[in-house]
């Protein structure tokens, strides 16, 4: 049941989404804003959600899909409960953030862009969170971790593993 809810969304989520569409449909250029809100409601943008938006705005599904796939912030797949985002900006890269990414991939057994089977973690890379003074950095959800080394990664992940129990 939980699985299905995650896949197609609840009635409540749909109600929220329709309210957002109604509130902003008259603003010029509102599609991006609605998509951002929708991703906030559902966590990602499944096809069904895109259909609701297209119908609500009276535009084609292909136009909505085109915008969704253009911007890296929008995701067609669900993300993990804990979203890991490793900065691969230049300042972090020259300080070895690629090795941090490798270590996390190894530790979790998934690749960048994937989600662990238990849904606990997903890994993405990002371009600069602006904390270059702390390079290399990663974000887990909204928390920034700086001055990372390949050895310090496991301890941080363990904190989140512990929180599950």
């Amino acid at each position, binding site marked *: 049941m939980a699985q299905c809810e995650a896949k197609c969304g609840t009635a409540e989520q749909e109600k929220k989404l329709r309210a957002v569409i109604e509130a902003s449909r008259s603003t010029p250029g509102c599609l*991006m804003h609605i998509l951002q809100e929708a991703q906030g409601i559902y966590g990602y943008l499944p096809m069904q959600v895109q259909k609701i938006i297209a119908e609500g705005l009276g535009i084609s599904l292909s136009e909505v899909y085109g915008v969704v796939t253009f911007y890296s*912030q929008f995701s067609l797949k669900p993300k993990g409960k804990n979203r890991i985002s490793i900065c691969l900006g230049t300042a972090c890269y020259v300080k070895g953030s690629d090795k941090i990414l490798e270590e996390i991939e190894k530790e979790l057994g998934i690749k960048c862009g994937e989600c662990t089977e238990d849904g606990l973690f997903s890994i993405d890379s990002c371009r600069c969170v602006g904390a270059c003074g702390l390079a290399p950095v990663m974000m887990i959800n909204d928390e920034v971790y700086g001055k990372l080394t390949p050895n310090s990664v496991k301890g941080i992940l363990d904190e989140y593993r512990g929180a599950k129990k």
Partner: protein
Amino acid sequence: MTTKELDAIRQKKKALIDVRRVVKEQGEKLAKETGYRKQVLVCGGTGCTSSHSMKVIDQLEKSLKELGIKDVLVVKTGCFGLCALGPIMIVYPEGAFYAQMTPEHVKTVAEKHLVKDGEIVKELLYQGTVTKDGTVIPFAETPFYKKQMRIALRNCGVIAPEDIEEAIAAGDYAALEKVLSSMTPDDVINEMLASGLRGRGGAGFPTGRKWSFAKASQGDVKYVCCNADEGDPGAFMDRSVLEGDPHCVLEAMTIAGYAIGAHQGYIYVRAEYPVAVNRLKIALDQARKYGLLGKNILGFGFDFDIDIRLGAGAFVCGEETALMTSIEGHRGEPRPRPPFPAVKGLFGKPTILNNVETWANINPIILKGAAWFSSIGTESSSGTKVFALGGKITNVGLVEVPMGTTLREIVEEIGGGIPDGKKFKAAQTGGPSGGCIPAECIDTPIDYDSLLAIGSMMGSGGMIILDEDTCMVDISKFYLEFTADESCGKCTPCRIGTKRLLQLLTKITEGKGEPEDIVKIEELASHMKQSSLCALGQSAPNPILSTLRYFRKEYEDHINEKKCEAGVCKAMLNYSIDKEKCIGCGLCAKNCPVNAITKTDYTAPGHKLPSMAIDSSKCIKCGVCMGNCRFGAVVRK
């Protein structure tokens, strides 16, 4: 609000702000006027909040309460610049600069320094402010701050960005008042033209000319946009301005609206900057409430309002036409120019677009005059430039210097040199569109034209310092990965060109390069520069071309000798163990993920255990052994 009320706010809070700007003795006198014995400023920028400055504030407030101190004011400000030493806390009127604060440290400072007749806790200060004989010098005298000149960042780290009254007291909205009360739109544009201000987003187009084109365009509806889509990885100047002094951007956009005849502005800001977005929203609400945005601003009959639009993670949206397409709610693809935005921009109407740092310069130009501004910097590039100094440099952070400052001054004096005794190799400016400045050009004065002449560009202000451990082929590949990924796909030269360049570079870094690859790269690069639709594609080859110009031998070594001098390109690396240095502890073997390290039957003279050796056929070149060896016996060649 009327100008009188604006002035009243200014007078009310003036002393409070002045305490943070003047040196100790006068500061103490001023502090008496404010009713606060001391003010504690804590950085609430992204850099310091990432190193938990909010916990510092919490502890500070708790300690003050416990100690019963009521005459010390705590202020959450924007960035002080020295991000590597965060969280930073400055106590006025002394100007004591505490660095890398923890809640424990805060407690100590509160108990020993903030109490009545307290003393500065020297051991917790930024050690750059303590001389050898133990005297504390003002932080403005330290090498990091001494050579800087803060115009765009004038209020960052000085005011509380979430308090419009502090912003007003620090001078924000005074330029708007002057413009609306005593200048015509033409006066404003002439002042901009005379100042010589050029766009700080990268291309350096004269701001005054942009405005005059938009003013000349016919139309009843025009727009003013702010580009806060700071996409260059490693650059965070614009974010710091938005976080530290958001009102200066709102004020400047309103001035531009008056000058060109627009009544609506848009700020397009990266969604990855939650702190900045939040402060902007607060600033907008406050400005509307105080009548500094909206209808009949300051009673002069001029209407202007601003909306925020969030980006969604596309580098190309930093390009002006792509940004406008994105605000319109579409895929952020660039449009061919002409028509230029000043004629036909957002929603098909005349539009001007400037980036955050450019906007941050408007207020001082109006207040202090074009002549003052153009006297700073070089002849072709007036004013200052903010750089986000990062990479292999001691003082990572935000610096603002007059144009014409040399790279050497930035790296060696302000930046404090390269850590770990390594050698400076190059500085990368302009991000994925820019190039590298090699060590031999370290005395080049930095302005728009001299950087172009040496094959780099000013860019938006990211400056990444590279040391001898950086492979220039690898860094080019890094940038091409970025541009190939971020190419929007609309025009062929960029879409295919970036992919093909990346393939060629990958081939070279994998040790499969052939001599003709360099020729192919140069030919393709030249086609892309000429025929791509927007600046992303036109400048994507720059990182390769500039490294080829100054570090050609490195490319040739990769291709002909299959050698990576910096030891970065894995395919060309070999790890081995110096059997004379190895003491046989076996730590490397224990940590080797693929069991490629075993004991030999050789024991070096003076050692008790036989040394280890790496089986290169099994080795995956991860470097773990090297990181673990405490005797420097693992060699990478």
